[in-house]
């Protein structure tokens, strides 16, 4: 198997932090950890090794990518390997980017390894099978062994097993499988272990999300333009934007100029996750135009934005929700809206 290998300046034997600026250099044959690749996999040949400095990689990633892609192509490589990177952050980010590029643009299997804490993991875990290297560079041999096992399966287009079995960091993709025990049996077993203080293994670990900082308070509500945004699926009768009742991929902005009350006969609800009858009777229950108009009259709020914005929040994948949120925020920003009342279903 013909391999092109990427190393940073340190593992490439060029030097430490003082050489972190070096531009990509192509060496024939294996270097450092690359020799293990050849030792551990009969028939493996590291055709060439690309070495670049960590700072160069961080600052000029596009140029590095181009150099590596050219080298992988020219060398007729059947596999691209980067690292292992352990905890080295710039190295991990570069290795992830290079593997992702090789895989996507050349269709050649690519494998890297990092510690779970490496910032490259969060960036590329979904795109790649990143072997869990742990933090100890002394375990180099075992890590390379795992990388080769994963790489061979990728090269043969073989389905990889579970992360723990294969040694890669979970990519965050769910797959169904039938198991012997019912959920009830698993529940009681897990609860018993947890209750008596034995180790228990949850079938799912909550994802961690960065906290969303609360925005600064509205300085003067009496001069603010206020908009209503809902994920409760209220749409004009006929659902002109065809907003799906579950996992909606779009949103609509609906005019309320001159309206101080929404009438049930003019609207419908596109949402399958709650009992919509009460909103259909009186849409102000979800989109409180009536109350907001009164506050506008009293001068509590400056102005009600002339449209309400609506989508359906039911069972929506996060990636989609994020996009919808960004688009809606962008629109409101352009329209000079100062404050938003978010009404959930």
């Amino acid at each position: 198997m013909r391999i092109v290998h990427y190393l940073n300046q340190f593992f490439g034997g060029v030097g430490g932090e003082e050489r972190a600026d070096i531009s990509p250099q192509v060496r024939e044959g294996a270097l450092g950890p690359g020799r293990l690749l050849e030792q551990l996999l009969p028939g493996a040949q590291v055709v060439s090794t690309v070495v670049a400095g960590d700072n160069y990689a961080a600052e000029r990633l596009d140029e590095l990518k181009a150099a590596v892609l050219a080298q992988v192509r020219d060398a007729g490589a059947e596999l691209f390997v980067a690292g292992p990177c352990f905890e080295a952050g710039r190295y991990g980010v570069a290795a992830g980017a290079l593997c992702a590029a090789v895989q996507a643009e050349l269709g050649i299997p690519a494998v890297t390894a990092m510690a779970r804490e490496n910032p490259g993991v969060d960036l590329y875990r979904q795109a790649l099978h990143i072997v869990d290297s742990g933090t100890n560079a002394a375990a180099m041999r075992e890590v390379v062994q795992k990388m080769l096992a994963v790489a061979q399966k990728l090269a043969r287009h073989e389905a990889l097993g579970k992360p723990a079995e294969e040694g890669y960091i979970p990519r965050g993709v769910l797959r169904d499988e039938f198991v012997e025990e019912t959920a009830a049996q698993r529940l009681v077993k897990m609860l018993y272990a947890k209750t008596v203080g034995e180790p228990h293994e949850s079938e799912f670990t909550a994802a961690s999300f960065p906290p969303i900082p609360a925005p600064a308070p509205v300085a003067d509500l009496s001069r603010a333009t206020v908009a209503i945004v809902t994920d409760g699926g209220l749409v004009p009768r006929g659902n002109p934007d065809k907003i799906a009742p579950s996992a909606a991929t779009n949103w609509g902005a609906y005019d309320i100029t001159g309206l101080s009350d929404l009438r049930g006969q003019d609207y419908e609800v596109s949402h399958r996750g709650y009992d919509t009858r009460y909103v259909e009777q009186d849409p102000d229950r979800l989109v409180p135009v009536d109350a907001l108009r009164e506050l506008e009259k009293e001068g509590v709020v400056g102005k009600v934005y002339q449209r309400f914005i609506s989508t359906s929040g039911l069972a929506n994948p996060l990636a989609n929700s994020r996009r919808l949120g960004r688009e809606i925020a962008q629109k409101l920003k352009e329209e000079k809206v100062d404050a938003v009342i978010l009404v959930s279903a």
Partner: protein
Amino acid sequence: MSAAGGLVMRLTLEIHPVTEMRVGDATALQGTALSLEREELRRSLLEDQRLHAVDLEIVAPGEACRFGVVFDILEPRAKEPGAGSDFPGILDPITTAGRGLTHVLRGAAVTVIDETAPPATGKIVEMSGPAGAACPYAGLHHLIVVPHLQPGLSRPTVRHALRLASVKTAVHLARAALGQEPASTEVLETAGPLETERRGLPRLAYIGQVHSRQMVAEVNEQIFYGANTDGMVPTLLHPNEWLDGAVVAGYFNMGVETYFYQNHPVILELYRWHQERRITFVGAIATVAASDNEDRARNCMMAAQQAKWALGADGVVLTKYGGGAPHADMALTARICEELGMRTAVQVNDMSRDRSAESALLFNYPEVDAIVYTGGSDTEWAAPAVARAIAGSGTAAEALAAPQQLAATRVCGVTSQQGMARLRSFVY
């Protein structure tokens, strides 16, 4: 047994295995063969003026047969005369369920078809092939009841009629076992918090949702001892009451059938550990998922409080009902339980449409860290044409018989929310 002063919560199930079901001159159980005289049952069901006709079909395990839309599936059971009510609050006056003798036709099921439900997305049972192998109802002998309703009835009225037909049929069939020698007997008994002779064993409880107010219960939607749960707060419900007809499936019943209340996988598993003296099963609490924040806060608090101070639980299994939102109620209840010093395990049902782990959980409490994850979103079968399909109408049956993709979530029991699911999602 003195723990409860002589008035014990002991449910005795007399098990009559059914290995064959057929039409006959009389409704009777001969050995393990159940014969059904259809006219008698039909007359009884047609006493309900809302029905104008009833079809009755029998399906055996392994048959190339598909049926739906399933309104509900029940195990035929009947109380020994004098031992209490059958489906108290629905069929019979309210008496405490879960005590005394109940006759069970094990291996048999009564399945009621809803002719008014949209056929393309409704729940079905598949008796053969790979989808059948995954369906926990495929191994049963089904009596399929297809009630045909008078025109012009409202949806809730239709479903109320189906509910009545379902329990009547289940009891009618099981009465064939009265006076017969059972093949085996199961005794289910716990004095719950009053158990005194089991010191040192972990005290485990169950908190289960029996309804979700995502879809507000209809006035005639009989879920809990005949009531629709409107205004219901968390309620201690002895495990035997769950098993013996106090709870039936509501109308919005994703992954829930009455059969697995009668054979509740979580309750029976806790009982198994209890009987093996590894734990003390201290009891169960029925609750509902709220549709507003105050209800949610109140319900979750009260359920956890009862588990702690009425049951004295050390650990609690929690399951949910309905769709996505009830995860929030389940997880908040679990969190409060943890705060009160009880350990918890929860069952999550797959909601991640894009199969990403980040979209999977609808809660995020570090202490709720024992999660059983049931799958379903990306499992489906290319089901072949079947020789026989049973549905609400001829055209619906024809459509159902055709080859089609069957999503796991459509096949009854595969993505059970009652603890029966063997389909799990793994993170890759």
